[in-house]
């Protein structure tokens, strides 16, 4: 059996074709073509969709909708997505960013998937033909998800309320030791009114730092007041061990980097 590519103009037809065994969806190719090149013979057929809507970026009344085929490069250069540009630029080198897609990033196993970390902090919804799913639920069930993701939607964060940090061993581009995305609303007195923090590499997929989120409420962003939140940050995490860093190291430095992000 050689590898074969089937091209469809609609998601509906592609979804039907994807039901066949050994069939995978081809987005930017950075995951699935790599797997085939590396001898993953479980993949015998690839499916792609040419619908231009999948590559569309729509921004209106504070909401953004990104087609699943939108690339990291397209996000990084889009003027109305400036808040997300640091997260998009954190993915790979320039060639990878021209290929890697929003949809693909949702499925990228840790230490990859830094853009999905940003989407998790933004409480995005993931769109398929079956409807819309909150990203947290989507990520939890992604291993068995079969329907093609067509896009993601989220409320654009207010200026400066969204922060993103990726820590790598290799500069300027290496895979993550960890990544952190934080959406923080500050009250008039500069205390944290709401916090949503997502972490990459602290589990096999992006997860939220719910204990830290809670501990931050009502704090001003000073070293003393955020200390309990930093101490709580590792709660509920199960960091990965990979060639980049051990679970121990990731857990140890998470509070350090979270603190630096919050105080930046």
């Amino acid at each position, binding site marked *: *059996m*050689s*590898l074969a590519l089937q091209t469809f103009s609609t998601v509906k037809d592609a979804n039907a074709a994807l039901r066949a065994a050994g069939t995978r969806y081809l987005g930017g190719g950075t995951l699935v073509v790599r797997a*085939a090149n*590396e*001898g993953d*013979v479980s993949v015998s057929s690839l499916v792609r969709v040419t619908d231009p809507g999948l590559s569309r970026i729509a921004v209106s009344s504070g909401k953004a909708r990104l087609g699943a085929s939108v690339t990291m490069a397209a996000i990084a250069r889009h003027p109305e997505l400036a808040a997300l540009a640091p997260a998009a630029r954190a993915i790979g080198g320039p060639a990878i960013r021209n290929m890697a897609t929003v949809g693909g990033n949702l499925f990228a196993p840790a230490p990859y998937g830094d853009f999905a970390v940003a989407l998790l902090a933004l409480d995005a919804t993931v769109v398929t033909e079956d409807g819309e799913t909150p990203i947290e639920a989507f990520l939890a069930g992604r291993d068995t998800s079969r329907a093609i993701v067509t896009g993601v939607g989220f409320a654009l964060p207010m200026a400066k309320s969204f922060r993103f940090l990726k820590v790598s061993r290799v500069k300027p581009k290496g895979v993550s030791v960890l990544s952190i995305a934080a959406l923080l609303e500050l009250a008039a007195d500069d205390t944290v009114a709401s916090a949503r923090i997502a972490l990459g590499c602290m589990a096999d997929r992006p997860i939220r730092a719910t204990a830290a989120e809670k501990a931050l409420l009502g704090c001003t962003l000073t070293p003393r007041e955020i200390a309990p939140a930093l101490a709580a940050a590792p709660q509920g995490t199960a960091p990965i061990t990979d060639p980049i860093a051990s679970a121990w190291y990731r857990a140890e430095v998470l509070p350090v980097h979270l603190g630096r992000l919050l105080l930046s």
Partner: protein
Amino acid sequence: MELRKDYFADVRKDGLHEIGQPRPRLDSPGHVTGKTTYFADRNFPGMLHLKMVRSPHHHARIRSIDTSEAEKHPGVVRVLTARDVPHNVYTILILIQVGPEDETVLADGKVRWKGEAVVAVLAETERAAQEAAAKVKVDYEVLPAVFDMEEALKPGAPLVNEYHGQNYYLYDSGECRKVRFGDVEAGFAQADHILEQSYQSSPIEHAPTETTGCVVAPEGNDRFTCYTNTQAMFFTLDNASIILQMPGSKLHFVGGTVGGGFGGKVDVIVEPIAILGAKLTGRPVSFVYSREEEMQISSPRAAEKVVIKDGAMKDGRIVARKVTGYTDAGAYSRHSPYGAQKGAAHYPGPYTIPNVWIDTYCVYTNRTPSSAMRGFGVTIGDFALEVQMDKLARLIGMDPLEFRFINAYRDGDMKAHRQPTEGAALIECMQEASRAANWPVAEKYMAMSSYRKGA
């Protein structure tokens, strides 16, 4: 870069026409236009692709190998096992009379490291070869493995390699290569300070951007041309000749343009089996390591352990140094017996020490076989030696750079392996480093020279 012509000007003839001139590289125009031809840039009609079935176990007995499903797979042309290899047990240094033969081209009855080659599949496409390789069934009985050199040297440790009979390379000098110079115990007895420390390293991959590989084409006259990125053409050809029991005159190797080596392409691994495939099928064969194979299957730099015990005087003179070096060869020798010996010759470093004792061991474990890499036998030793020097200086309470001047070797000094020092230049390097790094040392050190009058 600054070329300091004022040093050693009295022993150097400058002003040559071509030597010393920054001529442009004749190969670079090919590089920047993408025209330079590497081995994999050759493509032949009907070329087969070779994929290797590898051991998933660190140490196991092979009960049986079933290739029947793989052979029936569409696109498969030939499946090779140990019995197809004319002289399956080999070692590359046998060419220079360093044995015993201790490694199998394809595993025969046993695997000794995770990743060891067991079955070779030749197919019309890479994909077909991968699919067929997944259908090869090998029944293993897993055996206890040993990954630690000191564990491996203990009585009762699992025996890694029966061709050696013990978990170390047996030199003519015994279980290790030895250097004995002066009386090291007397040196320790007279020393004001004693420092014994242990250093370790991890295997390091050469990681050239071009992976190891070759393309073999039958020439139609019972000769085979092997386009290869080996670092050593005749070394590889002659070893292939032994393994394949083919006269060397039947082999034609073409190479010499290599996408990075760093010592990683001296092991004679891909060529013999690819030539065998071409011979048995009559077709061109390509065997190119995947990046994963390059990173985890090709020989790395050996993991090493170095124990250094020094005796030093209050005035900074090192009076005794004892070094025990362990080189982890992994499961097979490849070049490691030489690496350990090279280490023995290198210690105690570029310093003049009157009492020296060196033991270097080449140890077998169930780790990936290691081999040569840039700085073979020396790089890790230098790490250990020079960190030890820093510790010693601080122990004595001296500036680390001045401490090195006190002990630096100079022309005529007798080395531990009993060769007089010639052409020394360590002192001048340190003097220049002192200036370049703005790390001042006492005037007497800046006035030193590697020359010795009458030496």
